[in-house]
């Protein structure tokens, strides 16, 4: 798919052939999996057909391909003429075809898919109209877009001095804003947990350049450490938190020691395998971890010994009686929100500071060129090991928080998908960018949470978003790398090249 030069126009015949090929491919893709559905019926399986879906998918692929080619070659007017009616037809089918056949919706059986298709076609025609209106429609080439986005990244990094504190300030007052209900705070806690994990993993992936696909293992070690310490030794959250972090870091050293001399992809598969091993052990060591039943009744964190519950357990005092407040169940949520905010900020502060220490510099140097580092007498394994175990430690902190928030943990929560999500946050945000992690976490975790009703489609859209963002911007949303040190500082502060 080469970028078409501005002047060249694909002949109609080639365009039709291209679109025809696309239609054939979509037909091949959809024929079996969309065209037939295996249905559970009493006494076995039955097969249903839904060839209308195949038909509509193929037709739309044909039209859509023509539209994309025209849009790319700045022939915006024709696409405005074809895409708009397609959008209208989809809308009409969705709205009114139900009268013909109350059993289902058209063109596809799912309202969500219909509406998304409608919005895509509408967006396409609007863009075409906009392009026709302005400068005869010059869609930017990929390089131009990368450059423009890099500039945005640089500007955002430059403005990070303001954006960071502003975001922090917003987070600080969020629980007291009038629209902050329990749901919003829960989403906030979730997003902050992922931000913290993202920052923790950023030390490993972003700074030290080690591809870790099993970060969830350390998250699990942290969560189970706290749960088990609370269960067997009756330790409170704040006492168990450092221990959980140390245990997770120790797990990191244990894993890292033999495997850290492997090159990138081997490391990825070994860490992935380690993540699975931890999960399998948690699942099967029934007497210790409770196996698939998990551990329940994990104690909640206390506010300097004061419980945030309606009634204190034996001998304790509760938060609301101590301060003479009326009890409100949201107090605990607000406390958890501030707790994870503090933990996340600690992670951030740690990363920002350690980047300036010799060890942080060593990580970044190692990421750039391992051979050069070795010839300068650095010990790559120990340097990597520190990054790995410090990242693991923050994963362990995050895990402890997860355990205390949920009150119940089981191996179900620590699947590979979690590692993938955290890694996606780091990479999508732009490797090594602290603010990028925040934006990516809000985009990937926060937004889908608001669409809980579309439960079934949530992960589908999540996967699609990962692909689309990466194709659109391969180096990450806010990727822009400034040298940490310059021999000759650029003239004028804040000037961006």
């Amino acid at each position, binding site marked *: 798919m080469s970028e078409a030069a501005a002047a060249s126009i694909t002949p109609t015949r080639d365009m039709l052939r291209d679109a025809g090929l696309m239609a054939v491919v979509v037909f091949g893709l959809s024929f079996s999996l969309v065209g037939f559905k295996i249905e559970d019926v009493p006494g076995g399986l039955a097969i249903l057909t839904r060839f209308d879906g195949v038909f509509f998918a193929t037709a739309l692929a044909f039209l859509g391909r023509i539209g994309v080619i025209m849009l790319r070659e700045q022939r915006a007017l024709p696409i405005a003429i074809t895409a708009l009616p397609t959008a209208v037809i989809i809308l009409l089918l969705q709205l009114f075809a139900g009268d013909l056949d109350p059993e289902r919706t058209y063109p596809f059986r799912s309202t969500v898919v219909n509406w998304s298709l409608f919005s895509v076609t509408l967006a396409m025609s609007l863009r075409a109209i906009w392009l026709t209106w302005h400068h005869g429609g010059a869609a930017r080439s990929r390089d131009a877009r990368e450059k423009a986005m890099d500039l945005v990244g640089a500007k955002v990094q430059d403005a990070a001095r303001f954006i960071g504190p502003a975001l922090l300030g917003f987070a600080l007052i969020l629980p007291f804003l009038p629209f902050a209900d329990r749901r919003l705070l829960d989403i906030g806690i979730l997003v902050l947990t992922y931000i913290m994990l993202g920052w923790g993993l950023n030390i490993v992936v972003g700074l030290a350049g080690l591809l870790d696909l099993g970060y969830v293992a350390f998250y699990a070690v942290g969560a189970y450490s706290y749960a088990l310490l609370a269960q067997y030794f009756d330790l409170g959250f704040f006492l168990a938190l450092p221990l959980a972090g140390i245990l997770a870091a120790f797990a990191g050293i244990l894993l890292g020691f033999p495997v850290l001399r492997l090159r990138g992809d081997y490391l990825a598969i070994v860490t992935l395998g380690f993540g699975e091993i931890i999960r399998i052990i948690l699942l099967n060591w029934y007497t210790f971890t409770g196996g698939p039943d998990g551990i329940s009744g994990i104690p909640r964190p206390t506010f300097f010994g004061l419980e945030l519950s309606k009634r204190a357990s034996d001998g304790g005092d509760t938060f609301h009686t101590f301060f003479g407040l009326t009890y409100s169940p949201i107090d605990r949520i607000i406390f958890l929100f501030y707790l994870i905010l503090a933990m996340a900020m600690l992670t951030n502060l740690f990363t920002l500071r350690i980047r300036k220490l010799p060890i942080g510099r060593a990580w970044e140097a190692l990421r750039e060129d391992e*051979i050069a580092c070795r010839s300068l007498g650095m010990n790559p394994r120990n340097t990597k090991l520190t990054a790995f175990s410090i990242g693991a430690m923050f994963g362990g902190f995050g895990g402890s928080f997860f355990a205390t928030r949920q009150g119940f943990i089981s191996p179900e929560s620590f699947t590979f998908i979690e590692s993938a999500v955290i890694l996606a946050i780091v990479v999508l945000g732009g490797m090594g960018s602290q603010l990028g992690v925040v934006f990516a976490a809000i985009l990937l975790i926060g937004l889908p949470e608001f669409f809980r009703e579309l439960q079934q*489609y949530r992960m589908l859209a999540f*996967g699609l978003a990962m*692909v689309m963002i*990466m194709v659109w911007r391969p180096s990450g949303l806010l990727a822009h790398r400034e040298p940490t040190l310059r021999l000759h500082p650029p003239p004028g502060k804040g000037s961006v090249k």
Partner: protein
Amino acid sequence: MGYFLQQLINGVSLGMIYALIAIGYTMVYGIIGMINFAHGEIFMIGAFISIITFMVLSLLGIGWIPLALVIMLLATTILTSVYGWALERVAYRPLRNSPRLAALITAIGMSIFLQNYVQLLQGARVKPLQPLISGGFRFLEGGDFVVTLSYLQLFIIVLTIVLMLAFTYLINKTALGRAQRACQQDLGMAGLIGINVDRTISLTFVMGATLASVAGLIFLLNYGVIDFYIGFLAGVKAFTAAVLGGIGSLPGAMLGGLLIGLIEAFWSAYFTVEYKDVAAFAILVLVLIFRPTGLLGKPDVEKV
């Protein structure tokens, strides 16, 4: 002795599935140096297309098993390879000159997408299939343990060996195979001497998907139940197999797959079933510590 032999047979037929998937990983890695994370999902889609084809065939009244098997094989290889082609087109080609991590993220994204796509279209429940091939040869009937080589296992082993021979021929003797090996050595140089690099990479994905779809069919026949989640674990183990054999090396992938299958079978037979996956990964770590490039991989020399 009988018990050992039985596990050997089971391990080999299991290993064949991993080997078929592992070839896809190792080929893609060899050419573009990326982990095709969504390859396990392609395997899963192959299994789903197989079961759908079988259901359609029985609806049409084609009940003669050999004919049904041939049609299933054809349908699943053709339709799944379209998925392989589309995967490369959507998720890899736009990112060929991008940071390697970017392609890994799109691959994981595609893997999540395809899993949920199949789940939405075909439902989350497991799909059972009655055994299509039953019976088998029995050995050592006089001993304390009767060894059975079922016709199904024989079918699996023969089919895989035939495919691998055809595949080895394809890589070593045909123009396409030469083009692939050239791309493996140097993409830019291969393009300069007139090899259509895009087409070669596309065909590599198609070939990988074809072999994975056959693995999907075999998995369906062997286990009789599939769901939308089977791709992950099979994919991870097949990748482990590819790394174990030395990634980028085709005989290595076959050997690695076979070894992983044998390790799993023997571990489940003599130790515990629960920890069979742990065993496979532990062996991988051990091999990588002592032979970082895998069993048959070539050591890569880093030049400065």
